[in-house]
């Protein structure tokens, strides 16, 4: 790895003109854009940028041990705050390691800017050492990307990248910076980018709001189906107001968890494959579904034609392409969710006559609660989730990995506020949980951040425990350790005649492993230890800790609607 970083040189023409190199301009631009934290990992092509960061004491650069962690952490940061998350990687292998995290951000519409270093412009396209066509590789998983060929364009490209990432339907943006571009001295930049020709959030169409209000007013069995778009629009207050006024029940998607306080009496919990029976029955019987900030994901709808078969759909989304993508909308409303829900609440100020509907819903809730039986010998994973929710009052930031534990967390944690339940929804990327929790903790140093992970997924990114130790980030890791790739084991049990092919894990002692990393660790094997252990964990003041909870290896996540089927095929608990 060789570099010859050109130093900034003052030109000697009498008066001092500060000549900066591209990398310095890049860092300055980041500062001007309000960036205070970057998750990254250096390398040859990125050295000029790292050299410029050497002087940037006000920008925290978190040196992660794998760029995948940088991307997931940027997502966690963005999801915990609503601000743009930033990750930085060197060319080639550094950049390619970001791809999973960027895909996750794309699928879940999370604003992230990835700055990737690139080989010098002169050798781009020649299979240079550590060259990867990262623009090409990320075309399908980014909102947009920039290859900056002239250092004078750096401020404009970055400013535009941040605006594109955060505006409209948010998403990831890549800015690829060749090494020579970041090394070149430049006297002037090309100034600010032209104001975006893309309009700001769209106001809802008055006629469509009136039509939606009329549909809801006539509805006998209405349901609100709320997703991640409510959270990214910051529309929780408006959603809650609408529900309070009208009494319409709400069900949330995995991405929509926290869109409304899930302790709200009108909230039916999550719907979909592992949603509550009541939420799924409600949608099945609904005559009007108000879908807001959702994309009719197949994990929610099952077989599309059987999803809410009697319902008329009102669909609110900021992205016109979402409307009619999977289900036709009777009343399409292309708008910012906050404006649209606010307008709907104004149009529907009175309670709707839904007594009969609520009698039905309450009967379903009473008949089909989420259930599990905690005995004396083995720990039920649901018990851990429920106890965690109780001890934190559902006020901690819970970040999950992917698998059974994710669905149990979704069932038993009932977040009270938006941005306090973070999970890889669209991509379902194992290895997401711990890094995203790390990013969330950087973003919210005073919050209690709990990473609820499986023993499989944790092992995909647990090396970055050392990063948390280094930064004294008090992330609390709960491993729901079932000795297997639990969700896969469940599918093999249900759908592959118990032919358990390559799903059992030999695990390290996670508690001791934590200690080796310099974190705190504990193991729990008995139900009566769970509460005390969780309380201990929540009280650890400083630095990360790992609680290795040995749970029932046989437990399955129910209820479950098998993939591609309908409510009628639901496997109950």
């Amino acid at each position, binding site marked *: 790895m060789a570099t010859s970083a050109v130093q900034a040189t003052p030109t000697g023409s009498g008066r001092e003109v500060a000549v900066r190199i591209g990398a310095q301009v890049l860092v300055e631009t980041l500062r001007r854009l309000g960036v205070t934290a970057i998750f990254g990992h250096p390398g040859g092509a990125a050295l000029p940028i790292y050299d410029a960061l050497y002087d940037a004491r006000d920008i925290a650069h978190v040196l992660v041990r794998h760029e995948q962690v940088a991307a997931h952490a940027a997502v966690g940061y963005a999801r915990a705050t609503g601000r743009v998350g930033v990750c930085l990687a060197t060319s080639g292998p550094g950049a390619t390691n970001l791809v999973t995290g960027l895909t996750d951000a794309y699928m879940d519409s999370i604003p992230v800017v990835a700055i990737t270093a690139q080989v010098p412009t002169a050798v781009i396209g020649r299979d240079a050492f550590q060259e990867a066509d990262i623009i090409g590789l990320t*075309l399908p998983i980014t*909102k*947009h990307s920039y290859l900056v060929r002239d250092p004078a364009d750096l401020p404009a490209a970055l400013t535009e990248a941040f605006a*594109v990432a955060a505006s409209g339907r948010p998403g990831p943006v890549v800015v690829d910076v060749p090494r020579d571009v970041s090394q070149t001295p430049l006297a002037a930049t090309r100034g600010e980018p032209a104001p975006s*020709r893309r309009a700001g959030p769209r106001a809802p169409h008055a006629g469509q709001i009136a039509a939606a209000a009329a549909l809801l007013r006539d509805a006998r069995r209405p349901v609100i189906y709320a997703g991640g778009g409510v959270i990214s629009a910051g529309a929780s207050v408006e959603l809650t107001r609408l529900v309070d006024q009208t009494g319409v029940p709400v069900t949330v998607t995995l991405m929509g968890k926290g869109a409304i306080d899930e302790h709200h009496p009108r909230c039916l919990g999550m719907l979909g494959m592992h949603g509550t029976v009541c939420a799924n029955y409600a949608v099945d019987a609904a005559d009007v579904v108000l879908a807001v900030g959702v994309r009719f994901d197949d994990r929610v709808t099952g077989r599309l034609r059987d999803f809410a078969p009697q319902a008329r759909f009102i669909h609110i989304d900021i992205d016109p*392409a979402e*409307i009619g993508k999977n289900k036709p909308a009777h009343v399409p409303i292309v708008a910012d969710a906050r404006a649209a829900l606010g307008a709907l609440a104004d149009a529907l100020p009175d309670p709707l006559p839904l007594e009969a509907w609520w009698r039905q819903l309450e009967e379903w809730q009473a008949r089909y609660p989420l259930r599990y039986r905690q005995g004396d010998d083995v720990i039920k994973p649901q018990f851990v989730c429920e106890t965690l929710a109780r001890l934190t009052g559902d006020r901690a930031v819970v970040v999950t990995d992917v698998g059974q534990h994710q669905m149990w967390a979704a069932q038993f944690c009932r977040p009270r506020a938006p941005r306090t339940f973070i999970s890889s929804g669209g991509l379902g990327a194992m290895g997401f949980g711990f890094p995203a929790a790390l990013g969330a903790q950087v973003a919210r140093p005073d919050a209690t951040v709990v990473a609820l992970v499986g023993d499989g997924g944790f092992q995909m990114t647990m090396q970055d425990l050392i990063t948390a130790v280094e930064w004294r980030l008090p992330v609390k890791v709960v491993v729901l350790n079932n000795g297997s790739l639990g969700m896969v084991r469940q599918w093999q049990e249900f759908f592959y005649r118990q032919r358990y092919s390559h799903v059992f894990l030999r695990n390290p002692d996670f508690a001791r492993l934590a200690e080796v990393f310099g974190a705190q660790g504990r193991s729990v094997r008995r139900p009566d230890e769970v509460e005390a252990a969780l309380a201990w964990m929540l009280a650890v003041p400083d630095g990360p800790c790992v609680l290795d909870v040995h749970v029932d290896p046989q437990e399955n996540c129910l209820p479950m609607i098998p993939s591609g089927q309908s409510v009628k095929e639901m496997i109950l608990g």
Partner: protein
Amino acid sequence: MASAAPTPQPGTAAATATANGGGGGPRTLGVLVEMRAAVLERVAGLLRRRGYPVRELVLGRTEEPHLARLFVVLEEGASGEQVAKNLNKLVDVRRVADLSAQPTVVRELALIKVDVTPGTRQEVLLAARVFRARVVDMGERTLTLEVSGRPEKVDALYRLLRRYGVRELVRSGPLALVRGPQST
């Protein structure tokens, strides 16, 4: 001008189709894009990823050096609406118009190399004259015609010439402009 997708055999499925036809024919979307790096990949990648039935994708330069017009011809029966909405999401896309829904001038250029014998040469030349095709090359055994016009005119000429034996054919795919003062 470049055609980014292979031109399928003409005169098959939709011989009577026109970019101006509306109704059940293939739909043509006119897309005004900024000529920036990877813009063609972005458009083509989006269309492939979402599995839209694209028959042709044609890129043409415009009066502005930094803008280009892309024409996306969808297979018959495909709805242009989702495609248009998705294209509109691309940062480099300025405007998307469904040209099938408005009066347009549509033109396509084709070169057709036909087998001829002393006995058929005159018939082919007659066909060329009727279709206002120009003879751009003439050999002992082949004749190459240049024809421009609406895609269905090209289809019709091709169908007529097939019986003599078409050795080679290349079509540009359609270029179109909305009629009258409003822009495409």
